[in-house]
């Protein structure tokens, strides 16, 4: 029955685009297809849930059609990520029903509803593929469809540049992934995961390292690990909000899935330095991600950078798991892996919530610049509340779902001290410090975001007249928020199957008592906090509304509040080495020099990976190409000379070869 549901889930995702494109510009049809998509995603979530909790395997083999073996199998790991895709996809689909209608005209909306199911289908294929061909088929299509969805929002000059960088980096990443798959060929019977797994055991160490490094680079590019993260803050913000929610929350996870499938399942771990490399990448990505997020005042770019940070945290978990595996502590490796996967699920939930919230804010105020927002909680009560829940979750406060993953990560870092090796015993606990620092900066970053955007006095007319968004959008965000709080209070629901999954993957029995405090004490603490909350809030208190105290001056205006740049100034000063901001202050005086008419302060971050790493590479290629171009001189004699030289060269080669 579950197998039939899975097949129908895939088939339906293929049918919807056909139906939408078949009858174009018919809003009734669009509404039907959007509801259909919602239903299909719910079915998908059900199938994935059953397979994830009960752990039974589904399989679908299309090899009789395609020239290469094309098989999809849903084991526990695939089910988990399929659950992420569908569980996050459903609310996003619900959200976009009214969002798309309000924002896009006929044909654009048609394209949106045609490409969205295909995008979900390609991700589903990637996550459930069990042969290299199927995986790569889905992998490339995922990039194409997401680029198509971004293009729907407009094709201005700047957007095209971002899409260009996005597609180019994805292609380069895909090349690395293809190479890592094909390196199995000399030893593997075929290119399906089972035979690759068998071959991996008997491969020489050099080849395994090459495969690991290539897959690390390939999946790192897709996940947004620091040197390769350039595309993430460029591509996510310019996509329509529901699409950027899907991209940030789910598409990044497919990269995590790929890396876990490759490194843990197929290669089965490696020497300790693999773990250190992943830990280093995670730490650098986390720190730089959140530090860049701190200075952003565009809502969606900030969320995109915070995705980079969360990917860093996930990689910290994976790195710890690799180190444990290398120092034969598989039980703790399973715990660390479970922590990383749990954080991946949590991140997909609260990040999609925040992006949908950003979409709602954009819908209501037509701007995403935090400096122009303010006081939105009073005007958009539901959106404000769910956004608050999202912010609390992303910081990792207890009683919200970000906390569980980070807690287990801390627990495994501390357990790292038990490993006999000196280096592990020092590195892993210090990573706990790095994680705490990332958490601290994230707290101030999102306090700034929420404080400036949703609280205080509105800073622009649009913010002043903002009104609550459509109910379906509110409901979808509320669903996600409820999920965040539920998983925050009872992480045990998801944690036990995750521990079983990690155990299966590493062929060991995961330490379930290591996560006892999370699964059992956290609910009690939630009850205690709730009780104190009710008792204290219950006390009747007379309330008097009066204007804010302005030290006796007549009235405060919105410009007297702290702006987002001002809020992050202290931390920017502490980490000035990271930004190397160049500050410009231009003052415009009225008549006398003592009474300035206006002072404009601008601080722009000058350090950027694009300038220091990518631009030189591109210039080198274009330079070589320009020199090669000069070889095509246009003079026929020179062409003849090339032929004769080629002939002579070959004759000499033949003489000596």
């Amino acid at each position, binding site marked *: 029955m579950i197998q039939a549901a899975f097949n129908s889930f895939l088939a339906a995702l293929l049918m919807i685009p056909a139906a939408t494109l078949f009858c174009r510009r018919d809003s009734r049809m669009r509404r039907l297809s959007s509801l259909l998509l919602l239903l299909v995603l719910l079915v998908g979530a059900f199938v994935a849930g059953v397979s994830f909790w009960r752990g039974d395997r589904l399989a679908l083999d299309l090899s009789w059609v395609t020239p290469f073996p094309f098989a999809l199998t849903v084991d526990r790991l695939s089910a988990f990520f399929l659950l992420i895709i569908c569980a996050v996809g459903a609310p996003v689909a619900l959200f976009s029903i009214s969002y798309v209608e309000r924002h896009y005209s006929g044909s654009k909306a048609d394209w949106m509803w045609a490409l969205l199911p295909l995008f979900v289908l390609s991700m589903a294929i990637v996550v459930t593929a069990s042969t290299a061909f199927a995986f790569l088929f889905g992998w490339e299509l995922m990039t194409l469809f997401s680029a198509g969805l971004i293009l729907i929002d407009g094709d201005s000059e700047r957007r*095209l540049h971002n899409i260009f960088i996005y597609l180019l980096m994805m292609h380069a990443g895909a090349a690395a992934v293809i190479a890592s798959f094909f390196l199995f060929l000399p030893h593997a019977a075929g290119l399906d995961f089972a035979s690759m797994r068998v071959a991996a055991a008997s491969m020489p160490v050099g080849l395994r390292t090459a495969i690991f490094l290539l897959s690390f680079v390939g999946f790192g590019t897709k996940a947004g690990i620091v040197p390769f993260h350039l595309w993430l803050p460029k591509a996510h913000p310019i996509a329509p909000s529901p699409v950027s929610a899907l991209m940030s929350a789910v598409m990044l996870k497919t990269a995590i899935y790929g890396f876990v499938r490759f490194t843990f399942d197929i290669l089965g771990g490696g020497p300790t330095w693999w773990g250190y490399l992943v830990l280093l990448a995670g730490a650098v990505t986390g720190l730089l991600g959140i530090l860049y997020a701190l200075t952003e005042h565009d809502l969606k770019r900030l969320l995109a950078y915070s995705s980079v940070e969360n990917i860093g945290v996930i990689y910290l978990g994976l790195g710890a798991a690799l180190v444990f595996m290398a120092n034969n502590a598989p039980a703790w490796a399973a715990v660390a892996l479970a922590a990383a996967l749990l954080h991946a699920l949590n991140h997909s939930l609260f990040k999609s919530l925040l992006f949908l919230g950003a979409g709602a804010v954009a819908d209501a105020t037509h701007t995403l610049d935090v400096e122009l927002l303010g006081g939105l909680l009073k005007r958009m009560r539901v959106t404000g509340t769910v956004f608050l829940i999202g912010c609390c979750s992303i910081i990792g406060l207890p009683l919200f779902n970000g906390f569980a993953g980070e807690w287990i990560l801390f627990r495994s870092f501390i357990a790292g001290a038990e490993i006999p090796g000196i280096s592990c015993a020092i590195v892993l606990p210090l990573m706990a410090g790095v994680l705490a620092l990332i958490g601290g900066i994230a707290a101030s970053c999102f306090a700034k975001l929420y404080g400036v955007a949703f609280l205080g006095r509105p800073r622009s007319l649009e913010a002043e007249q903002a009104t609550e968004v459509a109910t379906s959008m509110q409901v979808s965000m509320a669903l996600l928020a409820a999920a965040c709080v539920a998983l925050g209070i009872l992480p045990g629901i998801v944690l036990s199957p995750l521990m079983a999954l990690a155990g299966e993957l590493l062929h060991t029995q995961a330490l379930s008592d290591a996560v006892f405090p999370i699964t059992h004490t956290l609910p009690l603490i939630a009850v205690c906090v709730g009780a104190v909350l009710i008792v204290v809030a219950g006390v009747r208190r007379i309330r008097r509304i009066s204007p804010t105290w302005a030290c006796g001056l007549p009235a405060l205006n919105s410009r007297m509040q702290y702006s987002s740049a001002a809020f992050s100034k202290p931390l920017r000063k502490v980490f000035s080495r990271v930004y190397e901001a160049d500050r410009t202050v231009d003052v415009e005086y009225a008549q006398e020099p003592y009474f300035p008419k206006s002072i404009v302060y601008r601080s722009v971050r000058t350090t950027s990976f694009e300038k220091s790493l990518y631009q030189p590479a591109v210039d080198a290629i274009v330079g070589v190409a320009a020199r090669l171009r000069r070889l095509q001189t246009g003079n026929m004699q020179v062409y003849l000379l*090339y032929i004769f030289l080629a002939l002579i060269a070959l004759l000499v080669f033949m003489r000596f070869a």
Partner: protein
Amino acid sequence: MTLVFLLLIPLLAALIVLTCKRPRRAVRVAMSAGALEVAAIANAVWRVRAAGMLECGRYLRADGLTAFFLLSVGVILALVLVYSIGYLRHIPAGRFSSPRWFYSLTFVFVFTIMAVYLSANLGMLWICVESTTLASALLVGFYNTKGAVEAGWKYLVVCTVGIAFALFGTIALYLAAFKSGVNPESALDWAALMNAASSLGANRDLIKLSFVFVAVGYGTKIGFVPMHSWLPDAHAEAPTPISALLSAVLLNCAMYALLRFDAITSHAIGSEFSHTLLLIFGGLSVTVAALLMVVQRDLKRLLAYSSIEHMGIVAIGVGIGGPVGLFGALLHTFNHSVAKSLMFFTAGNVRESYDTLRMRRIHGMARSMPWTSAGLVVSSLAIVGMPPFGLFISEFMILTAAFSASRYLIAILLMVSLSIVFGALLHHFQPMLAGKRVSVPAKLKLLPTDFAVMGACAALLVVFGVRIPDAFAYLLQRALVVLQ
């Protein structure tokens, strides 16, 4: 007998088309002749599929490999002729450039190509390949503009010189056969040489010398890098249907000839020497063509360099060898022909609407020419090797072969070049497709034939991307058996 028909139809068509004065009649005659020819090809391929090999007299033979290449010629010829109906409306009538002359020269060109595929004798093969150059030189210079004449002249001289070396190679092979006791009468017959290949091994030096000259000779026709300089000029200046024919059919024709020689050489002295040569040429072509595509300014020159790159990929596929590599290479020739002809058709439409091919001056294509830009997007995605299309399958095969033969350097080189090409195409096509159109001339009214042609190409690409039809796969296997 069917083979003779294959040759006769285009020759007769060329003469008849020349006689009819009014362009409308010329087009109608050309179309019917084209249909006849395609039917003949289909019949021949069907017969070869059934009988395994057809022979007619001492000089005509059609085996599995010929049948496969004939099939791709048939498909491309049909597409080009149908497209040319729409295309020729816009050609200013000149002394030589009237539809009458166009179709007659085209049919002469088709005749020479048929002759190449059907010739059993390597000497005859050389003569036919040389005659394809002569036939297509006039077509390249068809428009009589400065650029066309220059391109035609360079194409003629450079290719003739290149081919001359192939003649020397053929003679060297003939000498080796003659020396190792094959009777002079059948010393140049391909089948005879294949049977006597083992005895040829005696004089290794001569066989190696012959393959070097043949590689440089036919390499010039294929457009391998050091000898490629004529290709961008010829393909860019020729009228669009002709550049489609040149890129999609003529390059395969030269590759077919090289395959024949490679088969003999590998049977005689082992494939190590010839495949190394092919890999060198392939790697060089893929890398240099990819880099040159980054700095191109003219759309058709860009497509020409992309042809060089794809021929390099085919050479790499053959160079790696093994059943998978060869299968991938042959499949790649077919896929590339279809995708490249679709790209040239869209380029033709762009030239009609914008009357320039400088990519920097073309903007807002998506809005003003939706269907053509759809064609351009589909074909460029296919050319770059994106999944749902055929080229992804063949490149997948070639890479699989490369990695299982653990030739990592050439595989890495190939993948880096593919990424550079992806970046180049994206960089060039994005500003063309997006943006607002500055001057909006009369909307280009696409004929139903244009829609049909572009639709057929796209359909072919997707079908071959998802599933290779059994009949086609069987034909490919037969071609492999012939070469193995």
